[in-house]
């Protein structure tokens, strides 16, 4: 079992390295194509590793390992760490990291599902409700889709997200409506409606299912997070294509709570928290820059060819990694 987990992590690393390198050299800008290619990297260890292990067991035997294999984890066992073979030690460390990443990413989502105030909708009322209703109708009309179901949730923090697989819903907290002007709210609702049009809540649950099947694989979690970023970029791009990017950038900036030290908070913070906060702030700035920048353009003629080449490349390379 340890050997299989180690091989799956190794395959995930090679798959991720290949796909990320291809994204760079092919200069793939369109989020939709980036999502598709990264899904290949995410699925490779889930599909190819068990298939190769079950139907090509000879790959682990010395004749293949010594003659044909490009990389064999077993060859690293000549090195030991505190008496433990290097491949086993690396597997133990990476599996632990995988579990930490999985729990860190999944627990907030589960907490959201079980939080009582999140599940109890408030009836839409007053001028805020009318404004939200009007904006959502406008957004749906611009995208040519039906008006999504809206739900006002009881939260003191700004919340604006889409949820629901069978009954797609946009959830909004009152704080969001206070923070956003009409242009920003319109753009933010467009963004969420694009998510619903692409069935991204379902996409999110499929990602969670695939991550759960690879819970101990840290590389799978990193790739899945990159896919989530691409999903956001795809919705951002659609909104920018409608000419609403300034409003969207403002909405992103307003709804992202300042994570770094504010000028009024001078209490000492651990260095790692400051670094994390700076990284989050940097990510918000980068995303706003991307939203305000040029979009990636139409689908490339060679996109299907790239998918086939990447799939073949993964299948061949991983066969020779044992």
């Amino acid at each position, binding site marked *: 079992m340890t050997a299989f987990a180690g091989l799956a992590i190794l395959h995930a690393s*090679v798959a991720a*390295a*290949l796909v990320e*390198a*291809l994204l760079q*050299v*092919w*200069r793939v*800008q369109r989020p939709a194509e980036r999502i598709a290619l990264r899904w290949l990297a995410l699925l490779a260890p889930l599909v190819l590793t068990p298939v190769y292990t079950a139907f090509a067991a000879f790959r682990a035997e*010395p004749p293949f*390992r*010594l003659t044909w*294999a*490009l*990389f*064999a984890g077993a*060859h*690293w*066992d*000549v*090195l030991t760490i505190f008496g433990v073979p*290097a491949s086993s030690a690396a597997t133990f460390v990476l599996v632990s990291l995988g579990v930490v990443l999985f729990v860190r990413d999944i627990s907030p989502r589960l907490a959201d599902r079980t939080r009582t105030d999140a599940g109890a909708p408030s009836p839409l009322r007053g001028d805020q409700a009318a404004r939200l209703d009007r904006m959502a109708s406008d957004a749906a009309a611009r995208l040519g889709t039906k008006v999504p179901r809206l739900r006002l949730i009881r939260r003191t923090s700004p919340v604006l997200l889409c949820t629901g697989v069978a009954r797609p819903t946009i959830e909004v907290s009152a704080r969001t409506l206070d923070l956003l002007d009409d242009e920003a709210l319109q753009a933010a609702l467009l963004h969420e409606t694009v998510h619903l049009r692409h069935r991204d809540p379902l996409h999110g649950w499929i990602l969670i299912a695939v991550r759960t099947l690879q819970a101990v694989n840290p590389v799978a979690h990193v790739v899945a997070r990159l896919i989530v970023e691409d999903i956001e970029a795809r919705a951002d791009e659609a909104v*920018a*294509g409608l*000419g609403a*990017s*300034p409003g969207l950038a403002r909405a992103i900036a307003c709804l992202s709570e300042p994570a770094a030290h504010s000028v009024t908070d001078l209490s000492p913070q651990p260095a790692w928290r400051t670094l994390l906060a700076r990284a989050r702030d940097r990510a918000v700035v980068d995303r706003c820059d991307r*939203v*305000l*920048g*040029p*979009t*990636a*353009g*139409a689908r*490339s*003629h*060679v996109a299907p*060819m*790239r998918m086939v*080449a*990447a799939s073949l*490349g993964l299948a*061949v*390379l991983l066969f*020779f*990694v044992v």
Partner: protein
Amino acid sequence: MRRAVDPGLPGTTIVPAEDAGESRLRQGARTSARFLAVVVLLAGTLRGLDQLPGILTSLPRGATRVESLDRLERELGFAFPLPVDYPAELAWPPVELRLYPGPSAVAIVDAADTGSPALIVGTAGPGLLAVSPELLPPVTVLQASESAFGARRATVARVQDAGGALWHQATWSAHGRVVVVRYRGDVARLSRMVAGMTR
């Protein structure tokens, strides 16, 4: 990459240069060339990483060091041949025991006084025609002849290693297993060792 229109304004579009005015054939060729370059580079990197442990431990790729004769025999699945008539000038235990998949194994024994290798014993599993060349240091055969040791016949040779040192080497097969004894000393001493081992 080049921008199609108004590079500074939101909502403008980046058009990859290869999409702008290039034939599909050229785009396909460019895509394929870059793909192949990445695959070759990644394969080379993986192969390099695969060689790294061997470089760090001075062992051939796939070979492992074994800490005891008991462990070596467990891994081999049969008794490792050692001279019964063991020369007094050799140190004990062997300074290094190496195993190679197949399996093949060698024991390297130092001279007690100089601390340099003076005896190398190697064996290979049933069905193998020779001890893996990955384990035995390369030598040049200067002279070889057939000799009888009791009921067995062995090839006795004078060989020279890469450093120019002369060794005597005996090679024979017993119970379907190849045995090689390489001794850095006179041929008579080697013959006494081999006679004891083939009895």
